[in-house]
């Protein structure tokens, strides 16, 4: 693989990693508060449809983005209702919401546009377009490091930078604010938080809503940034890859960045079988690259490469009084 090909693959990796990163951070907030969420996939999907549809109807990607976030928060609230208020099974709720999203997106998109469950192709202001970072041309002229800045980092849509900035923001919120301290505590030991006079229910609902916002960004990026419009099942398991990345990252924000970049890199490689063949001298089956994030996660889960320990109160509904 020569340098310019590497730059191309890295550029594509960052694009592929963005929805994974946003969804992974979304899951981080929910699971750190003690609410398991395997419904990331469904929330991304419904947000993708809502943002794609509204952007197509209004011609404004920003209104589309808001619609996507709104739809995703709605699903988050159903998950919260089931798992916080009615103390139901969080895993089953997540599974149910994924199916609900699969069905709803096609039904609504078909009713609105009659294009077989797709939204019309977006262009111009209805889409997130590439932004050139300052001095991209000047720094791009520097050998070796220049292209990294000009080609890989620069020239993405706004949500890519939002996702990258969300990492330090999440770290700061989690480890440097009162809210973050309480959030981590409620995921480990909700009784102690309750004893301190802080509402477990309110804290968990706020976490779940943040999850909704971030999944909304991830879904909107899929439909209006990465691609030009929503297509049925367009998330294609990314919600589950994000979940895998979350475990891989041991529920930590900076690790989440590295994990999703790695998984994004694998996805980008899977798109370029010619590069793989050129580099390894033999054809690596694309199916193997597709499966690699899942295989790596199972290995991490098995505890062979450092143990991944989930938040202690995860999955258990909190009962204040018996």
């Amino acid at each position: 693989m020569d340098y310019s090909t590497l730059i191309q693959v890295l550029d594509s990796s960052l694009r592929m990693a963005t929805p994974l990163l946003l969804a992974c951070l979304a899951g981080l907030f929910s699971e750190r508060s003690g609410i398991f969420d395997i419904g990331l996939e469904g929330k991304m999907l419904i947000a993708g449809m809502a943002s794609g549809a509204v952007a197509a109807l209004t011609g404004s990607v920003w209104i589309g983005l808001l619609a996507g976030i709104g739809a995703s928060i709605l699903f988050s609230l159903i998950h919260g209702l089931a798992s916080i208020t009615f103390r139901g099974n969080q895993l089953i709720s997540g599974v149910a919401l994924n199916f609900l999203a699969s069905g709803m997106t096609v039904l609504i998109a078909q009713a609105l546009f009659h294009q077989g469950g797709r939204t019309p192709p977006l262009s111009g202001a209805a889409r997130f377009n590439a932004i050139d970072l300052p001095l991209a041309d000047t720094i791009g002229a520097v050998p070796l490091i220049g292209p990294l800045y000009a080609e890989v980092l620069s020239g993405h849509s706004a949500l890519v930078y939002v996702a990258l900035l969300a990492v330090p923001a999440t770290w700061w919120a989690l480890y440097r604010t009162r809210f973050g301290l309480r959030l981590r505590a409620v995921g480990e030991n909700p009784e102690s938080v309750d004893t301190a006079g802080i509402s477990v229910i309110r804290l968990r609902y706020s976490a779940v809503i943040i999850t909704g916002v971030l999944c909304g960004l991830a879904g909107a990026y899929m439909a209006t940034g990465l691609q030009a419009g929503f297509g049925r099942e367009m998330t294609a398991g990314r919600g589950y890859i994000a979940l895998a990345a979350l475990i891989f990252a041991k529920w930590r924000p900076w690790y989440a960045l590295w994990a999703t970049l790695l998984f994004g890199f694998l996805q980008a490689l899977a798109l370029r079988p010619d590069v793989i063949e050129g580099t390894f001298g033999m054809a690596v089956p694309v199916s193997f690259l597709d499966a690699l994030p899942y295989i790596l996660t199972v290995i991490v889960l098995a505890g062979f490469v450092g143990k991944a320990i989930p938040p202690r109160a995860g999955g258990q509904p909190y009962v204040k009084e018996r």
Partner: protein
Amino acid sequence: MEKLPAWADIVLVPLISLLLAAVISAIVILAIGQDPWEAVSVMVQGALGSSYGWGYTLYYTTSFIFTGLAVTVAFHASQFNIGGEGQAQLGGLGVALVCLSVPWPHWALALPAAMIGAALFGAAWAAIPAYLQAKRGSHIVITTIMFNYIASALIVYLLVEVLRPAGQMDPASARFPAGAALPTLHDIPGLNLIFTRKVPANITFFVAVAACFGVWLLLWRTRLGYEIRAFGKSERAAIYAGISPVKVIMVSMLISGGLAGLMAINNVMGEAERLLQNSAEGAGFIGIAVALMGRNHPFGVFLAALLFGFLYQGGAEMGLWTSIPIELRLLLQGLVILFTGALDNMVRMMLGVFFRAKAKGAA
């Protein structure tokens, strides 16, 4: 929250959940500008109105019985097996290898062999997540999800690179020998008076009914079943009573994976007669809804599988004859899972209000 009468918990909770799911679906159909009554009549007519429709309904029912039983057995050991989809796909691989290995002279020989292949491959695919849960404490829900994706990647690879006959374009295995073809309900003397046309429902249906009975025997009439249920109710009490958690998790998940794998004799051997990509077509996931709706009892699973067989076949007809997309099935499936599995306490609370009012009226 007071306890409901046992019959209300078993019968009313799933029925009210189904009613809520149906009402919400009707509202969605209205919202997209279609007629819910038309949808219902097309579904009933298409799935139950003719023996041809029944032939499809029972075909889907057969698959859903297997995957529903798979989720049920694991649930009784408090394991949530979401991996039915992958296990069913691997079961299909087992069936294909058995059917293609020998030029089978008669289906009566091929069926037991294929059943062993299907169950072994399904169980093997459940074995790794089970082992990781039992020995290393890795969460079975996450590992079985991961194994679904690994399974589909593996099957795609095998179909494209290994099993595809030379010169064939589409990624699928070779056709099974004619001797491995299972008799459909149309081919069975007596039943062919009812099923006058060729239907996909086949002899596997009776295997599925037998499996319901077998699972009931296992769970409520054997020592192993007792150990599974005791462990599922209280892990600590079970350990105190000398029940080995590793054994219960491993055995219950192996049985669960085997049952999911067995589904493949219905769709791969009975219908497609070759192994295709994505052969399970989501039936593994429907097993979750079937088990929840059926209250984790084999008889309930049978009824719920019949209901989902109807929804599946009726939904296909609806997609064909009305402007309502076939994806309404997924919506219904999601709603049933949501109400029976996650919002069940809400349904109970609603029923509790009703029973309290009745108790007051009687006093």
